[in-house]
């Protein structure tokens, strides 16, 4: 097991009280596993990704443990996390376009970053250039300013930089959302290639696009209102989902070749609960067509078949 997360809870502090954005996540990632973490806005998927890297000022660690390659990952202690960030856990942010320092040439910026981590730029340069060439960029990007690169080039540069020290866990947070379809495909396939080449051991690919992540992920993890709803092999989750939310979500996706005249799809009525004071029990209850009395108790995130867990009493 490369990553083991147990009962992780991270809340946002607000004047009105704690917003329970991540309220108990339990899951594991196998070596070499890419999981697609999908959910709607406000489901807590980005909070989960971020809490494995760095808790920002508004985030409050409440409980839970994270284990990476058998050793504890001190997610609650930002200072101790410094030894892990970039080396063991790394992030590709959503807006890679603005992740680079505009006043430095790309090479200089990378050198600064590496040296701040006690690495020698000179020693790593050949590997850096080799990997830039792998994603179709030449050595000359190192001599350019970020403004001289296109959005796609910046995205690829950041991808190479984030994985340069071969981290064990990579979190890709909505990296394809701002890109055109042809670039989306290139970025997703490049990331899968990084895993195949062993640049990263396992990956959490945070996205709202199930169809996209299904192209590269081994497993899909579905979040709803701060909790995990379902996790299983990608094919199983897409073709025979067990959680009613996953089922409704997948049947709401228009596919190429489907037109409303032939087959009318329907959305999920209602909206997710406010996480400031979430209702007890199953959080999907109000929107769920299968809800019954037992749903007033919180369903456990339990395995329904090997490697397939669902948080639903009816699964």
């Amino acid at each position: 097991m490369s990553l083991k997360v147990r009962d992780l809870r991270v809340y946002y502090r607000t004047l009105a009280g704690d917003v329970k954005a991540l309220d108990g996540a339990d899951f594991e990632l196998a070596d070499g596993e890419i999981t697609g973490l999908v959910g709607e806005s406000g489901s807590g998927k980005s909070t989960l990704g971020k809490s494995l890297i760095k808790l920002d000022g508004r985030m409050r660690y409440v409980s839970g443990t994270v284990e990476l390659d058998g050793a504890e990952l001190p997610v609650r202690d930002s200072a101790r996390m410094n030894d892990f960030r970039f080396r063991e856990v790394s992030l590709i942010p959503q807006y890679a376009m603005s992740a680079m320092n505009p006043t430095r040439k790309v090479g200089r910026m990378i050198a600064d970053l590496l040296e701040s981590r006690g690495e020698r730029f000179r020693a790593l340069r050949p590997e850096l250039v080799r990997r830039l060439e792998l994603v179709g960029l030449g050595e000359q990007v190192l001599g350019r300013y970020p403004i001289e690169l296109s959005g796609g080039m910046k995205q690829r540069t950041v991808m190479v930089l984030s994985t340069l020290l071969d981290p064990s866990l990579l979190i890709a947070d909505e990296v394809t959302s701002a890109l055109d379809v042809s670039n989306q495909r290139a970025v997703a396939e490049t990331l899968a290639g990084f895993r195949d080449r062993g640049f990263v051991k396992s990956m959490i690919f945070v996205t709202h696009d199930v169809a996209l992540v299904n192209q590269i992920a081994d497993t899909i993890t579905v979040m709803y209102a701060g909790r995990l709803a379902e996790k299983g092999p990608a094919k199983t989750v897409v073709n025979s989902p067990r959680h009613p939310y996953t089922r409704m979500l997948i049947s709401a996706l228009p596919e190429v070749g489907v037109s409303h005249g032939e087959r009318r799809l329907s959305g999920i009525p209602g909206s997710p609960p406010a996480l400031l004071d979430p209702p007890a029990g199953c959080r999907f209850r109000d929107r769920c067509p299968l809800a019954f009395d037992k749903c007033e108790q919180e369903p456990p995130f339990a395995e329904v078949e090997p490697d397939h867990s669902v948080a639903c009493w009816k699964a």
Partner: protein
Amino acid sequence: MLKLDRVSKVYRVGSFGGEQLRAVGDVSFEVRPGQVVSLIGESGSGKSTIGKMVLRTSRITSGTISFDGADISRYRRTGELKEYYRRVQGVFQDPFSSYNPVFKADRVFEMIRTEYFAAVPAAEWRAKLDAALRTVRLDPAQVLGKYPHQLSGGQLQRLLIARALLLDIELLVADEIISMLDASTRIDVLNLLADLKERGLGILFITHDLSLGNYVSDQTVILRGGSVVERGATRRVFANPLHPYTRRLLSSVPQLHKTWAEVDAELRARDAGAERRCAYHERLPDGGPDPLAAVDEDHHVACFALDGAPCPDAARTPVG
């Protein structure tokens, strides 16, 4: 109803506007009543610029846009333009920035009332408003009197569509209206567009997502770099994509039940044995004034050569 005839838009860029940037070039298509036309393209394809020109928020450089036979760029006096906006309205991508957060969301309706329906008595207006809200499947009690932050993106977007419907519009320009919405509410807005179309509304549906375009539209226009590369009945364009760019787009769209590799293999299998020649120059070896050639009933395609490169299948290199 709406007709674009060889419309171009050139921006002046660079210092002192010395350079020219062609955002839209030679685009022609039509939107008929009760028809959804999807305008599909990636960023920089000029799709939003076309929407803006139809809404008269951006001037055209050459060509004509006509609505029911009248050239819309000739509207000069405020009265004429106001009358145009009574019949043509737009809804845009980001519902959160379309509202002023300081005011309640239903202020958008009040503005319509003072502008167009000042003489309508309160009770009658209220009935009209309720009817418009019910059409977009919103409960008036739930959405009226609320601030934008109290409503979801899907609700805000539907309010804007309701606002457009108050005006008895005939054409709606929908520019990426669902790309900011969550998957579970997206489809409801798409179905709403399909219902409005049944009632005779013409919709110009601008998107970068082929599967969304395919779901709602009757006609598809594929844009690249400001020009139309392929155009026709949605069924034909999707079942038999001809232009290499259309095929590339289709092969990049992630599909739920097919991997990218499978889609690639399918496209290759369809071409097996056949040499892919430029369909445009097959029909018009010498080219012609129209950048598109008809390859089938209601299916038009541009020259396969892209980015100004000469087409190897052209009989003569075009002059200029």
